């Protein structure tokens, strides 16, 4: 079985500054994989590289065995990878319903169609309704997304990410800024929605990370210093020194 995501010797420079150096990461199919690391370690940059938001300076990224480095984000998305954003990134002037529906359209094969009535597509309507119910926003469907509460927008963010039915999901700090209760709800949501899919998650909240992840990679200064099961990571001295130790200050 080939890996869902395979990052090999990727480097990213901005001018002379090396943000990512010799990054190697492998995520198996169906795995829940967390990426952790101190601020500025390059976690979001890693996501941006994998999702095609920025192109690597060198190295190779594969999705299900196919090289995707250098492709545009929509090309990668069409190959079955979807991501969320750390800063809420929804379609603010459109309603919640339309936000999710737009994310469903490409996957249901309607693409750029200008001859179909979007309200008369049963498949689209069914999937949109399902996802809205999944993320507990069905009752808020006619509200413009910009007017939702912060926690609701985070949930919508996840909804948009999973709506296209991608089998590799990248979530960038999905619980950032949430209260404890909201976090619990979100984690349950993520667990349920990514059932049977590959999940890569960047997270600061260690209870979330250790509760959710099958495997964990630790990123420090643009380099993966350790990768393994939660137990292995807990026991890894390098991690303790470079990351947990540092956080203890």
């Amino acid at each position, binding site marked *: 079985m080939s890996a869902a995501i395979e990052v090999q010797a990727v480097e990213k420079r901005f001018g002379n500054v090396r943000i990512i150096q010799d990054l190697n990461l492998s995520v198996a199919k169906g795995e829940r994989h967390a990426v952790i690391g101190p601020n500025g370690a390059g976690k979001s940059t890693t996501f941006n590289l994998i999702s095609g938001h920025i192109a690597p300076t060198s190295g190779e990224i594969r999705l299900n065995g196919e090289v995707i480095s250098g492709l*545009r984000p*929509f090309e990668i998305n069409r190959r079955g990878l979807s991501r969320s954003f750390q800063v809420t990134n929804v379609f*603010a002037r*459109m309603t919640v319903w*339309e936000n999710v529906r737009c994310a469903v359209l490409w996957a249901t094969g309607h693409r750029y169609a*200008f001859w179909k009535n*979007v309200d008369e597509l049963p498949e689209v309507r069914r999937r949109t309704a399902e996802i809205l119910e999944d993320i507990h926003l069905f009752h808020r469907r006619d509200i413009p997304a910009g007017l939702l509460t912060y926690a609701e927008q985070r949930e919508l963010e996840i909804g948009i990410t999973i*709506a296209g039915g991608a089998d590799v999901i990248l979530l960038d700090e999905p619980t950032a800024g949430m209260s404890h209760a909201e976090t619990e709800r979100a984690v349950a949501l993520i667990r349920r929605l990514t059932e049977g899919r590959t999940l890569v998650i960047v997270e600061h909240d260690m209870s979330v990370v250790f509760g959710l992840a099958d495997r964990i990679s630790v990123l420090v200064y643009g380099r993966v210093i350790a990768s393994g099961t939660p137990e292995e990571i807990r026991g890894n001295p390098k991690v303790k020194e470079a990351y947990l130790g540092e956080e203890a200050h």
Partner: protein
Amino acid sequence: MSDTATSAVDIKAQSRGQNLRFYGIWVIAAIVLIVLPMIFSSGGSLTSFSLIGISIIFALSYNILLGQTGLLSFGHAVHYGLGGFLAIHAMNAVIARGWSIPLPLIPLVGGVGGLAIAIVVGWVITKRAGTVFAMISLGIGELVASSSLILRSVFGGESGVTTNRTDLPQVFGWNFGPQIQIYYLIAFWLMISAIAMYALTRTPLGRICNAVRDNPERVEFIGYDPHVVRYLAYCFAGFFAGIAGGLSAINFEIANSAYLGAVQSGIVLFATFIGGTAYFFGPILGAILVTYLQLGLTSVTTVWQLYFGVIFIGIVMFAPGGIAGLLMMHRPLVRAGSLGLMIPAYLIALVPTVALACGVILAIEIIARQHLPADAQIINLLGIPFSATSPATWLTSVILIVGGYFVARLTWQRIADAWDRATTIARDRGYLA
């Protein structure tokens, strides 16, 4: 609150209801268009209605870009103009070759013209959005307008190309000489185009256009190439602008470089934005208002451009949703039944606000008349003659502006308070988020 069980069925019923209301509105619009010339049958009103009809199509096509895809174009008249030119040449070819293409099909030729140029230039233009798109569209507009004066064999120099619409094959005994027949032709195409453009907003592409407008970056992560979306929107906008241009060519029986120019592009931007870009009917209101102002204001004042500019700045600063936005703000209040709270506040504010406006108009007209001879110094405002040279007029203007402003400010505060109360009620009753 959680009513997940009702889900999809509920949604379906809801959209059925909307559909009924939706067809109703179109039927009413069609009836209005048919009856209108029977009520106002003078030559002047027919001319105005025809022009308004054309500018509605043009403004709606512009809103595909501005309102729906978030593209601010300063060169939309390129499509309008080239559509017009192609229509004129098609008409002349039909006459010369004796083809049996009747006049009512000519606007479609215009549409194809507008579409063709959109297909050619659109790909480059739509590479970028935002400010860069605006500047490139301006550049392309200038380029095409200037080139039209060089390519004389196609564009006929500055006198343009003329035709005679009555020489085309006739249908149902109409020769399309009289304006009333042209009016009905325009009304027909107005209905077709408006329905088509409305339908476009209800398609997957139309919805993705909105998504690109709101957040082009995120669109890339749900599988869409924003460049392709913008390009397709640009092509549709070009097509419908071409139809408007073709109708204009039929109406005036002439096409010339003024069709393509910056003025035409500016007017459609004015109309669309003043009407409101967020709602489908916004550009319709805007086109009616701006065409009316263009026809009417010019015979009342020579500085109509200034009033245009001031109205436009006012809308940008205080009501970026345009007229449609202002109207739709009140919809939750109407539903909640709290609109009644607003009416007295509006009525009270009307008096000082009108006084303020009159003062400003008076001041503008006084300055505008300073270069004119003595006999042109009479300003006729609301039926009252003012002499622009008399200190009494200046004083009136100053009093109206200063007094009007201070009183109006108080009444505006009243409106704001009333608004708070009315929206609170609407929110309590669940009509407002």
